């Protein structure tokens, strides 16, 4: 049942930007015709087998087709997950030779070893990067939408930074803000700031946030501009007769954009929670003084640098639970229908 729920949510979150199977490029998003959307919306409420376009009678062939994917998922996903549950309950000795059942001791150790601090850091990091990059992404998308024939040029100018590998972006920022010769650092120092992110925890944290935002903006821009494109032009036009500027945004566009906003919010939270490892590893290695140790970085440190299998297992499990909660939340919210159409 839980699988069904999340499946449904994912379908509805993908719906507003679905592919049209026809090759005609209507808009870059492929705004769906009403016939298709009605077909799909019945599909997500009815049983899955009712709406299938065609069903072949073969019984053995589909199993053969799906087998390789299932095999890879089973070996590299299901097995490790089971392993994580098992590992989290055992305690190995210092030489990694013997091990014994430890119950919940690992979870206790995890919570004691600064886990709550990592949790707080991750939460603040997530909040800051999500809010700021969403605001910038939306602002850019709104402005670019109104540039008419220049739109494709601006789109190109704003999407590319998403493709830059996190580790590479981290390296470039690391140099630009390197305290001795980095131009960014010099600029800050000329403004009277004692800039040295190797010593100041808050400065390291700010740097990591800034560069995550730099990267995330492109991603958010893509989704917001897709969402804006999906709002029918006549609705915007009609609204333009009655109200303008901020009013129009507040009462017409923003509410119509709410499914997109929610979708972006959840994606941003997920990527802030789990996707920031490379940047942190390049720029600050979790320091100084643990001020940039997020949950994933703590897991890396405990598991690989300190070799504490039990602790890392417990932390993995806690991450599993966290992402499960987020997905449940997502399916809850999307089911309550933020859609106006």
């Amino acid at each position, binding site marked *: 049942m839980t699988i069904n729920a999340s499946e449904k949510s994912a379908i509805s979150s993908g719906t507003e930007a679905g*592919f049209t199977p*026809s090759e005609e490029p209507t808009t870059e998003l492929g705004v769906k015709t009403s016939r298709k959307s009605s077909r799909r919306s019945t599909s997500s409420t009815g049983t899955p087998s009712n709406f299938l376009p*065609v069903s072949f009678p073969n019984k053995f062939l589909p199993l053969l087709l799906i087998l*390789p994917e299932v095999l890879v*998922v089973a070996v590299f*996903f299901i097995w490790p997950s089971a*392993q994580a549950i098992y590992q989290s309950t055992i305690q190995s000795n210092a030489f990694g030779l013997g091990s014994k059942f430890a119950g919940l001791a690992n979870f206790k150790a995890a919570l004691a070893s600064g886990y709550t601090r990592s949790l707080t850091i991750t939460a603040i990091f997530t909040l800051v990067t999500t809010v700021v990059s969403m605001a910038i992404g939306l602002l850019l998308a709104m402005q670019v939408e109104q540039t008419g024939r220049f739109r494709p040029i601006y789109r190109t100018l704003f999407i590319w930074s998403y493709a830059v590998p996190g580790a590479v972006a981290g390296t470039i920022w690391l140099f630009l803000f390197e305290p001795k*010769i980095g131009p960014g650092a010099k600029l800050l120092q000329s403004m009277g700031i004692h800039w040295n992110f190797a010593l100041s925890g808050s400065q390291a944290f700010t740097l990591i946030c800034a560069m995550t935002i730099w990267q995330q903006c492109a991603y958010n821009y893509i989704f917001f501009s897709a969402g804006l494109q999906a709002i029918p032009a006549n609705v915007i036009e009609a609204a333009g007769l009655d109200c303008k500027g901020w009013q129009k945004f507040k009462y017409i566009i923003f509410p119509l954009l709410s499914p997109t906003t929610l979708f972006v919010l959840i994606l941003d939270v997920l990527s802030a929670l789990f996707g920031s490892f490379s940047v942190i590893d390049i720029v600050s290695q979790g320091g100084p003084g643990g001020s940039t140790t997020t949950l994933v970085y703590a897991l890396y440190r405990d598991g690989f640098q300190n070799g504490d299998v039990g602790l890392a297992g417990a932390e993995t499990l806690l991450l599993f639970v966290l992402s499960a909660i987020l997905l449940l939340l997502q399916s809850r919210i999307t089911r309550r229908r933020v859609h106006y159409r």
Partner: protein
Amino acid sequence: MTTLSIEVKANKDQMRARRKRFGRSALRHLFLVIAASAFALPIYLALVISTHSAIDLLRGVPFAPGTKLISNLSSLFRGLPGTPRLGKMIFNSAIMALAITILKLGLSIPAAYAISFFRFRSRDLLFGLIFVTLMMPIEVRFFPTYAVTAKLGMLNSQFGLILPLVASATAVFVLRQFFMAFPIELADAARIDGIGPIRFLIKIVLPLSRPVLAALAVLEFVYGWNQYLWPLVISSSANSSTIVMGIKGLISAAESFAIPQWNLVMALAIVALIPPVIVVIAMQKWFIKGLTTGIS
């Protein structure tokens, strides 16, 4: 009060409105150009630095490009002490990104086809099994996955590097979405003509899926090329280093010089970001479609 004066007034209003609109649009372009430049500035500076020598940097970072790009690149191709050669790293990255792309599509197409076009007993169960991977990126599960990969003796091998990254449902999910909206008429016609399932897939479904396949290929290539954590965890020999993970080793090598070789680090950074950025810009239409359809 003749019609003439009214007309003149109307004309003036129109002019004023037009001027106002022009002013607003100019302001908008100004804002967007500044924003775009701000986004590009870090990369521009990196590019400039990669064209200078290390000594130039000590006098402050220049804003205009220099002439040392070729010599910087050639010292990267020779390799700094303790770091792999640039050519080797590019090769490793290309192999990893392409293998992930091909394997992901090769596994996902038949799986999604089976789920969408057949009715068989364990279908919902198997789909659910694949589907749960959607919510667990490798960053969450890398630790136990490492243990399993070690047990299978796949540490330091291409299989160990690639297969765990392929174990995710994004592509299956996007393809299923697409297949579900498949035109019924075509499928019916095919069945009436007595076309079997495999021929139907190859002759009809795949050609019609070209846009979605292109989108997925772009997404997977960028995903594969940009991997950092998993390659770092799984491979211990410098020879199997990809360019994205090799950058960390180069930073510490460059810093060990009397004059830090940041120009070389920036040159490597530029080389590492060119392939994914080019792919995304060249195929932006498909890339955007791919992103906005599925969950990545």
